[in-house]
């Protein structure tokens, strides 16, 4: 398939393994799952983005999109978002907040920090799959990522 070669890499920051599995299942439908890097907390996500710690040896390309949960161990989602959006090199990466809650204060804080999209995970599985699929399709396939992102 031609589109396979144009897939962007997705960095998913999510601590809940069940959510990871459900998300990956949803992304599989567009064959996007193989390109997902999972960071299980905010610190790991920043390690990945800064190519440090266990990601010291990875190629320095940026992901095409970051799917960011807000409730995370160690460094929470809003802090990760703040770090990304205040870094000259990282701020160009699109960040989608993908969270369970529709708390207005989280939403306001995220948009103030410069988030690119804010998605509440639907409880209903079909809605969830649709939301993830559309997200993946849009950010990893349709959207033209900023220069320096992985594009195979």
């Amino acid at each position, binding site marked *: 398939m031609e589109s396979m070669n144009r897939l962007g890499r997705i960095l998913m920051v999510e601590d*809940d393994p*069940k*959510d990871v599995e*459900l998300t990956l*299942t949803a992304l599989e439908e567009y064959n996007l799952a193989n390109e997902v890097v999972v960071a299980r907390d905010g610190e790991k996500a920043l390690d990945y983005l800064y190519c440090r710690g266990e990601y010291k040896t990875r190629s320095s390309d940026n992901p095409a999109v970051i799917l960011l949960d807000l*409730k995370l161990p160690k460094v929470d989602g809003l802090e990760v978002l703040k770090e990304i959006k205040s870094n000259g090199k990282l701020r160009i990466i699109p960040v989608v907040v993908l*969270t*369970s*809650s*529709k*708390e207005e204060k989280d939403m306001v804080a995220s948009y103030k920090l410069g988030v690119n999209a804010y998605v509440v*995970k*639907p*409880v*209903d*599985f*079909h809605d*969830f799959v649709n939301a993830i699929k559309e997200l993946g399709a849009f950010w990893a396939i349709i959207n033209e990522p900023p220069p320096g992102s992985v594009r195979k």
Partner: protein
Amino acid sequence: MTQPKLHLQFAHSSVLRYGLAVVSVAMALAIALPVQHYKFREVGLPLFLFAVAVTAWYAGVGPAALSIVLSSLCFDYFFAPPLYSLSFTLADVPALLILLTFAALITRFSTVRHRVEGELRQARDDLQIEVAERTQQASLLNLTHDSIFVRDMDFVITFWNLGAQELYGWAAEDAIGKHSNQLLQTVFPAPLEEVQAELLRTGRWAGELKRTTAQGATVVVAARYALRRDEQARPVAILETSNDITERKRREEEIQGLNQELAERSTQLESINKELEAFAYSVSHDLRAPLRHIAGFTELLHKKVSSVVDEKSNRYIAMILDSAKRMGNLIDDLLAFSRIGRAETQKTAVSLAQLVREALADVRQDTEGRNIAWKIGALPEFYGDRSMLRLVLVNLISNAIKFTRTRPQAEIEIGCADGNKDNLVVFVRDNGVGFDMKYVNKLFGVFQRLHESDAFEGTGIGLATVQRIIHRHGGKVWAEGVVDSGATFYFSAPKPQGHLWRA
């Protein structure tokens, strides 16, 4: 007292004054002439001098001059040689000079005496007026409601008005002469030395004092001190005006207590509210995640096994999914309900007709395949929070749609009922399954449902939300229903006063 009267008469009647001159000279002549016959020739001049002196003393300069002229003439005529003639000789000059000098001296003395007398009189009159004024002032002090008393620098009371008697219970005769602070058991708001120092420095002091009355009651008074000094600027007395503020003070303390209580309550409420918010947040976040997982993995399971397991297992799976979905809706509704309690209302003039149109658009999905006769009356403007009021209408209309489901021809009416001049009443009426008025009190409670959940789906939060919103608008909600003959739901809200209301 007779002398001034005499003087006044002389002073005011020139006839009398000049008459005195004539009479005194005539009397001097009348005495001198017979005496002359007894060879006392030298008595003439002294007698005329006396007449001039009397005139000058009592009648002033003019009559004195007249008496000098008359005395000179008489003396010249009757006593100076040649006798019985008015011929002036050089020998008469000394006598005339003596007369003139004497008269001048007496007149001068008289003038001084009159002036001094006048001054004395003036001083006495002034004094009398002042005494009268003071007496009047002292009685005026008794008229005031304020308590006024004066004490000297040793705290001994010297004046005590009726107000003081009324306030403190002691009569003037009991209070005067007593040590003021001991009598009244005064408690000062500051050390007495400071009060005294300020009084001596500025001449004034004001403050609240606690005192004990003759009856033993404690009173709080607002007191003002004024220091009186004598001509040498030495402090001599302190005038104290005070009025009873016991009642005011008590109320102030009461209000202060209430305020403090209120502040504590509101702090408590604030912390409860914060807890509630944290609770809502964790419900919203932490409960939804496992629910999503249940729904997600059950769905995945269903996909994998639906073709290999029996019907019963598939039904179980469907029920798990249904329950998960229902719980999701419950959580969402509950969160929306709690958000209404926490959110600020943003009130504006809202067109209810427009809101009803929007609400109907929202529920269009539920009306598909249904036969509903809508009857929408004239609706006024409503003053309130637009999105909240819209939620009210959506809830009531979707209820009406839901509970008329069993009717081949549903009828739903939305209109404005007769309120009164202060309130506006809106209703939503349907011809649905209705309800038993016995349970009307349960209608608006959270999670209260009057129908089995498989007959009419729902979370039982809709009407509770409606009630909460209307209560937040200062209005009321109520309902009327008959089993199997429909229901009417009403809500009211106060009409806003003034320019905000344009209906």
